């Protein structure tokens, strides 16, 4: 792990309809970590990612990716939105959705061609979904849809990956397949930031963690800060009992 900072968030405040959902967040994420963002429902985890990626405008604060504003660094960042945020009945196929990951590199107007298709097929193969390439996306199971989203992020060939609950609704096999791909990304020097709900698996999957609940509670190596104290601060209930179950 280098000393370089991949993502820096300064004094970030975000509000919907004037109600702040993220308060004065300061956060820096070093390059090369596989980091979980944990916090209860409505804690603002998705909002934090959206604000970092410029999808929503903060009312205060700033974000930098390798020292520059996000809009200068788009090509370095890949994004997997929360699965429920798109319409799975949209008339398109698995392959086509994966190809969307190449649009950023193409820029405006240029259409994807054979090269983009090849990249998409390789990514589908990597997530074990090649056999489903022509399938309409509503005909895929929840876990398969997550794999398609992961493949789409892979074709972005980014340095930093933001993933919003990639394990939502997947079975154990798919979960392991996905986490292995994420670990591979980290080994290749990428920074991977994952919104994660299953606290039991945090120590096993991740080496870095951020606790978030409207305010930033803590960020650091899992072995140092993943403890009852921070969990209790974040979730507001005593986690000693809950985690040991």
């Amino acid at each position: 792990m280098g000393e370089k900072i991949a993502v820096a968030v300064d004094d970030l405040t975000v509000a919907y309809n004037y109600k702040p959902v993220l308060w004065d967040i300061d956060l820096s994420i070093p390059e090369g970590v596989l980091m979980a963002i944990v916090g209860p429902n409505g804690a603002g985890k998705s909002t934090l990612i959206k604000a970092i990626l410029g999808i929503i405008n903060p009312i205060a604060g700033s974000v930098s990716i390798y020292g520059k504003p996000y809009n200068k660094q788009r090509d370095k960042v890949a994004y997997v939105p929360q699965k429920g945020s798109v319409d799975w009945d949209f008339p398109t196929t698995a392959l086509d959705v994966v190809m969307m990951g190449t649009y950023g590199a193409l820029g405006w107007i240029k259409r994807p061609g054979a090269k983009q298709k090849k990249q998409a097929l390789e990514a589908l193969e990597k997530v074990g979904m090649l056999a489903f390439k022509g399938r309409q996306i509503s005909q895929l199971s929840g876990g398969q849809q997550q794999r398609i989203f992961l493949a789409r992020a892979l074709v972005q060939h980014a340095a930093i990956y933001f993933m919003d609950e990639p394990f939502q609704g997947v079975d154990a096999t798919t979960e392991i397949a996905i986490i292995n791909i994420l670990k591979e990304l980290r080994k290749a020097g990428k920074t991977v930031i994952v919104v994660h709900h299953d606290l039991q698996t945090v120590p096993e999957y991740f080496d870095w963690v951020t606790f978030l609940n409207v305010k930033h509670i803590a960020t650091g190596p899992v072995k140092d800060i993943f403890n009852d104290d921070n969990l209790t601060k974040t979730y507001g209930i005593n986690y000693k009992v809950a985690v040991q179950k």
Partner: protein
Amino acid sequence: MNSELAIILIACLTSVACAIPGVFLVLRKMALISDAISHSILPGIVIGFFITEDLASPWLILLAAFSGIITVVLVEAIQKTGLVKEDTAIGLVFPALFSIGVLLIAIYASDIHLDADAVLVGRLEYAAFDQLMIGNESYGPKSMWTISTTLLITLALLFAFYKELKLSTFDIGLSSALGFSPVLMHYGLMSIASVTTVVSFDAVGAILVVALMIAPAAAAYLLTTDLNKMILLSVLFGIVSAVGGYYFAVWLDASISGSITTVLGLIFLLVYLFAPSKGLIAVLFRQKRQRIEVSLLTFLLHLNNHDSEEERRVGHLQEHINWGKVRSQTVLDLAEKNNMINVQNQVVFLTKKGLEFTEKALDYIITNKDEKIEDMKNDFFLFRG
């Protein structure tokens, strides 16, 4: 150009020009907004008419399209307050603007040729006669020019920004993260929809415009899972209803725009009923098949679980599984037809194929793994999700 051909051409161009933005409105679940736009451009048209005295003037078109955009902005502003939902906001905005338009017509424009009736259903018949005159030379109907120009612009934008439109419609978050501003795409689409509505308005009126935008796309949506095909089908439905509607009107001696709407309605109804996988009949048929297949599976599992002959007698099965005679017979027949069982002396045996099938199905039910059933899917609807 003879007037029959002119009317048909105008109707076709209008349908195609409406169908294309319609596809994206339907996919974005914004059918209501097209209704709002088509009504609230009215004050823009009336004010534009005072200034230009010409319904086909580009200034009037821009002014009216602008009031369409204002509608969208107002709806979003009301929605942003978080006090009401989108449909409520739409319901608040467009009647207000529409009624301003109607009042303006009633007060100031009663003697010019713009009446409330024409506003609703249009006057395709007249639109074909209103010729573009330059000097003494006639260059064909004005609305043909305005509509084909709009259509050309729409097509050019569609080809240029196809991938951006698709992405921002499917996944607004990724679109924004990749730098393809969804706001820009949204207002681009709204502008095209507004301009198209305005230029179609004179010929087909506020109600048909909405039908022409929404119905072809809604029907196409039920028939295909491919965006390209959805666009092509919508265009095709638009043309069919334009041409069909014209002859229908001639035959009945009725309003052309009314007939076009009727044909559109019929097309939608037919597709809704008979579409191969999303149609009502297909859905009902599939549900019936699935019920039978669940019964078959239950039956096979029962055979698999019980070795004693007593449990596997045909009569006993009827009592035990608690099905009526007809249902038991259907299931028995289906199982036999698929070589999954054979029946000797009223005792049912699982065949090798039946055994394999049952085990695979069990495996699927327990593990819920989709790979396991890929090859079973051809035989049975049950697993087709």
